């Protein structure tokens, strides 16, 4: 399983990429493999204020619906609209075109609660 070293991770299988005051968020390669074929994505709406660990997006595979959580407190800058017409991007390019939303974070210190690649690798064994 691919676990890029330059990203942060949550226990609930989201990846986080720091982009200045914002973070870009998606689900990991491990998570997309567990989910199987993604057929429907509901990204969050722009300007929504969210709390850490709040369910803000839904990813559905053929067999199940899964919630996606905000890793930290912040405001949604953008949801990935392309996933609405091409949900399989989550399977084919989970760390790239399969990103789900961008969040403007309230407090950069919150990111310290997230795990690094080594810790996430250990989690998924």
């Amino acid at each position, binding site marked *: 399983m691919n676990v890029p070293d330059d990203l942060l991770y949550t226990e*609930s*299988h*989201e990846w986080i990429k720091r982009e200045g005051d914002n973070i870009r968020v998606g*689900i990991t390669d491990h*998570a997309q493999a*567990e*989910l*199987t*074929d993604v*057929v*429907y994505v*509901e990204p969050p709406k722009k300007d929504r204020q969210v709390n850490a660990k709040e369910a803000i997006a*839904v*990813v*559905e*595979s*053929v*067999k*199940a*619906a*899964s*919630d*996606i*959580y905000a890793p930290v407190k912040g405001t949604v800058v953008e949801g990935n609209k392309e996933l*609405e017409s091409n949900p399989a991007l989550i399977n084919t390019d989970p760390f790239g075109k399969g990103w789900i939303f961008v969040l403007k974070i309230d407090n950069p210190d919150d990111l310290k609660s997230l795990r690094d690649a080594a810790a996430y690798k250990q989690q998924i064994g």
Partner: protein
Amino acid sequence: MKIVKSRMLIMSEAAQKKTPLYDEHVERGAKMIPFGDWIMPVQYTSILDEHQAVRKNVGMFDISHMGQLIAEGKGAGPWLNEMLTNNIDKLAVGAGQYTFLLNDKGGIIDDLIVYRIGDQKFLLVVNASRTDEDFAWLDRHRLVGQVSNLPLAEVRKLEACATKDIDLTNRSKDFGGVAIQGPKVTELFVDLPERNHIADLELEGMPISIARTGYTGEDGIEVFFRASDAAKFWNMVLEKGERFGIKPCGLGARDTLRLEMCYPLNGSDLSPERNPIEAGLGFFVDLTKPKFIGREVLLKVKETGPGQKLVPFRMDGKAPPPRPHYSVFSNGGCIGEVTSGTLSPSLNYGVGMAYINAPHSKIGSKIEIEIRLQKFPATIEKKPLYKKS
């Protein structure tokens, strides 16, 4: 992300039984999940790819978890005709029929296929999760012959004088089985039995039974063999099927394929609280038979009409896939509940089945499915949802 598993796939986290093909699944990299008491492959590579392999070429499923009961003896035929809804007298040797095992209230204990495999010998292929319950129910009624309403204590008293002319055995552990489904099955196998018929033969030293049946809507067969031959048979078919594009398939594709055809899944679409008439499966109930368990109730349901009906529907426009337990609405009022749902890989829109109040259940009716507190438009369709072009 939390992986929320659907009820269909996880009915119990309890003891996990392995089929004789377990090692083959693991070796080929299948994703294994608990299914009832069993651990089964949900997919090998992709549910969508496996689905398409069956629609276009051929795919093979492990169905070793399904149960096989054998009823034999002079009294077996007349007795089974009182246990099951369809008419066994219509079966010549080698023929099978879809039928129901009902409780005293007309509710569905199981849906199954019964084959006449000898003049007085019958094979019942039943759902994995119901095998033990079916056997216990049948065995109890075998002992008391035609008396169906006795308490267990009375049954025990009758055991001593039980009729000896019906043998009932549960052979599930002795057999493995696969379903080989898809249009190219007739290139892979020649001289297949007719639709809904079963034949015994020997293949490379393995005694097997081949039935021309399936759960996918494609031409196909279900093959049963000795559990000890399972791996050999599985690998032989995959090797011979390679040039036809055969794929090993999991329960995920099995579910999407059957749902496109509106074949019911016991435990989701069928249950002891539902009868075959409301499930829209009255075709498999012969009410002209003088006697069978559940008959009186079904006659009444037929007369008054069922309160709810199981109907297929499709999502209109862009919508999340429907899932079991979503509520169904019409003009703001709740009129039913979804029992099965998915994104149809062949049609590329959401499809499902739901029990809907009878007055709202007409084909073509516009309904709404509530998904995460939002209502999405849908239309009641005719069976099957997917028609081969």
